Structure formats: structure tokens, C-alpha cells
């Protein structure tokens, strides 16, 4: 089971891999679309990679609710519990 800090670090790594954004830029209050400029194709790629990394399932209908990095961390933490 990963801690919230570990989930954030893992997500930051995935976002960096997909978009080239520095991992430090991936903070809990950042919006994926507004702040990080991540388009829907990149978002789905990040979701699929996060599923594999954290061993969780993020349903397609849930993805639209993951507005900020914090939303994603909370969802993954909950799904792991």
C-alpha cells in the first residue's frame, strides 16, 4: 500500500514521462487541464499508466472527476484501501 506521498511522487513521474513537465510541478492543488495543460489523450495515458503502477482500476466515468492532482491521489489511495 502506497502512502499519499508515494502516490504523488509516482503520479509526478508518470506525468513527467508523458508530458515532460518537471515532477516538482505536479502538486496536489494543480488542475490537470488548467495548470498542467494536459489534454484528454494524455490524461487517459496517465490514467492507464497509474492503474498499472498502483494496481488499481480507475473507471472511465471516474476520470472526469479527477480535476486536480489531489483528486487523483485521493482516488488511488481509496481504491487501494
Amino acid at each position, binding site marked *: 500500500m502506497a502512502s499519499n506521498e508515494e502516490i504523488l511522487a509516482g503520479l509526478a513521474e508518470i506525468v513527467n514521462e*508523458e508530458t515532460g513537465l518537471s515532477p516538482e510541478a505536479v502538486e496536489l492543488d494543480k488542475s490537470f487541464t488548467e495548470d498542467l495543460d494536459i489534454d484528454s*489523450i494524455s490524461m487517459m495515458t496517465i490514467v492507464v499508466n497509474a492503474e498499472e503502477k498502483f494496481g488499481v482500476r480507475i473507471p472511465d466515468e471516474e476520470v472526469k472527476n479527477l480535476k486536480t492532482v489531489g483528486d487523483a491521489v485521493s482516488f488511488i489511495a481509496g481504491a487501494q484501501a
Partner: protein
Amino acid sequence: MTRKVVITGLGATTPIGGDVPTMWANSLKGVSGARTLEDDWVAKYELPVHFAARCSTPALDVLGRVEAKRMDPSTQFGVIASREAWADSGITEIDHDRLAVAFATGIGGVWTLLDAWDTLRDKGPRRVLPMTVPMLMPNGVAAAVSLDLGARAGAHTPVSACASGTEALHLGLELIRSGKADVVMCGGAEAAIHPMPLAAFSSMQALSRRNDEPERASRPYDLDRDGFVMGEGAGALVLEAEEHALARGARIYGELAGTSVTADAYHITAPDPEGLGATRALKAAMFDGRIQPSDVVHVNAHATSTPVGDKPEYTALKAALGSQLDSVAVSATKSQMGHLLGASGAVEAVLTALAVYERKTPVTINLENQDPEIPLDVVTSARDLPSGSIVALSNSFGFGGHNAVIAIRSI
């Protein structure tokens, strides 16, 4: 009055050079880009062919990691060549609504398609990533180039197997002549050195099996030719309406004077043994460019090094050029870089434009015993072309009976 179209920018990434200056220098020297493949899949699938001609500069040495991730390897090559051609053209300001793209491929995103199929089988549908579709679509390279340049006058993808790259130039010329665009980024890109296409081309007996001597395998017109060598890469040319180029004081490599495309309607893969479709294409391109046989001094031949393919091209050249053919310096540059399939016509157009501009011909390597049935004047060491107004032709033929010819005239 037909609009005159000129070539003002060149780009390439190939097995004998990752940019135009390197490729050009090597093409005059005569080097081989073919190498033994070190990939484990050669033995794993017991491929009958163990070599190919990979790009001398890996795409990832040129592109950023993140942008490359969103492109099939064929698109990576296309974007690299297009960026070089664009920089070379010196265009700094342009009406983007008057800039078009005609960027061809023979096969398209075959690596992406087959990798995704492997992923589906190994890991299930969830792991098939959303970029798969835009990466595998054959128009992916034209779309990426259009995005990269902001080209909004249409982005086209001619697909006619190994004639595709030359057909892109045919289309580019038409777009400018018809007034639909002032500038067109034309080109072709291919990246099919993957075990499946290698197996498939082998299965049709198209590839050389000279596994012990990859560098000597591509030998157009030689009696011991036994098939082509798979290559990869891209070529790109900036076509521009002459008045547009003159207005900005552009450096002009030559005029794209005439083009044509014909179909054999003879056999799905075998060339018409009489070369009738190719003859019609040659004559039509010359008619289109108001070219007399006596104007022609150089041909960059299709010449893939297959036993059945090289001779009908000779027959067609003879029919189109008659006795002038004796005075035409013929280069078979696939001897050096292998066959870049849908990119070959574009790369060879770059070489042909340079031949006209520099008045020098690239060389043909591995010609040891010239087939007596193909008595062409084949260039085996770099030769100077005459001064004055000259024309060079470049031929491309593709499975499906596609014939495409371009004619470039000196300025």
C-alpha cells in the same frame, strides 16, 4: 499561363546520412547503409533476411523524448526531414492558409499497429493507449507535419506503395499550379524494419538474402542482384510558386518542371515486362514539363535490385528517351541506402534536385557485372553534369502497378 513551381528547401534522414549535407556527401562517395540486424527478433522468428539499412542517426537523437513518444517512427523521420527542409528554405513569414502538406508513406504506422496488437494480447485492451490511433494512421505523418508547420491549406497523404514519395511531389505541383496553395511541404516517410514486414517481403521473394555481405546486397543492374534491401527514413522538399520564391529572394535548387502518375493495370505486384505504364509515365512527365529527350542528362532510377524489376525500367527509359539515353548518366542510389519504400521517391527527389543544382551525380555501388540486357550508362563514380539548361528525371514504381515520374530542370 501555368504557374511555375520551384524547389527551395531540402531535408532528409536516411541510412547514409541523418541530414542532407551528410547524405549528399556520402552519395557522391558511394557508401552502404546496410548492416546486419542485431535485434533478437531476427533469430527468434528465424527470419530468412538478417540485415537492413537503418537510419544512420536515430530519431531520438534529434527529437525530444516527449514529442517522439507521440509519433510512430515513420512520423518521427518525416518530422525530422520536414524541419530540415523548412529551415533550409529560409521561409520566415508565410500565410499559413496558403501552405499545404503532401507527405506520403507506403505502409504507415506499422510499428505502432503491431506493438498495440502485442499489448492487447499480452495485457488486455485497457493497456492499448489512446495515442495508438493517431500514431498508426497512414496520414499520421502528414498530420504531424501540418501541425508542426501550421500548414492549413490541406494535409494530404498519397499512398501508392513504393511510388508514394514521388506521387507526393506530383500532388504538390498540382496544388500550387491549381492555385490551392503557394507553398507545399512534400515528402515521404517510412519505418518498416520490423519482423513482420521483413517476413512478408521475404515471403514474396522481394528481399536480397545476401546475409553474409549486407553492404554488397543492394546491387541494381548487377547480374548477381537477388532482391532489394529494406531501408527506412524520410525525405522532404519545399515546393514553392516561383513568384513567391522570387519575391523573398529564395535560393532555388531547380524547377519541378513536370510530373506524372500512371497505372499499369497489369498485375498486382509484377511490373509490366514491356514497361508500358512506366513509359507512359515518363512521356507524360516530359510532356507536362515541355521537355525534349535531348534536355535530359540524368536519371535517378527506381532500380531496386530485384531480378525482375530493373529491366522493364530500362525498356521504358529507352522508349521514352530513344538514342538520347546513351548520353544520360543513370544513378541507382538504392544501391547505397536500400529501398525506403514510400520514402524512397522523396529522398531520391532530394538527390535529383541536388544533382541538378550542384551538377554532380550520386553514384551506384556494387555494380560488378552489369546485366548485358540493361546497357545503361550507370554512374559508378561521381560525375559532373553539363552546364546550360539541364533536366533530370526520377522514377518510382510501386506494387499495385503505380508509376510516378518527376522532372527537375535547372534554373
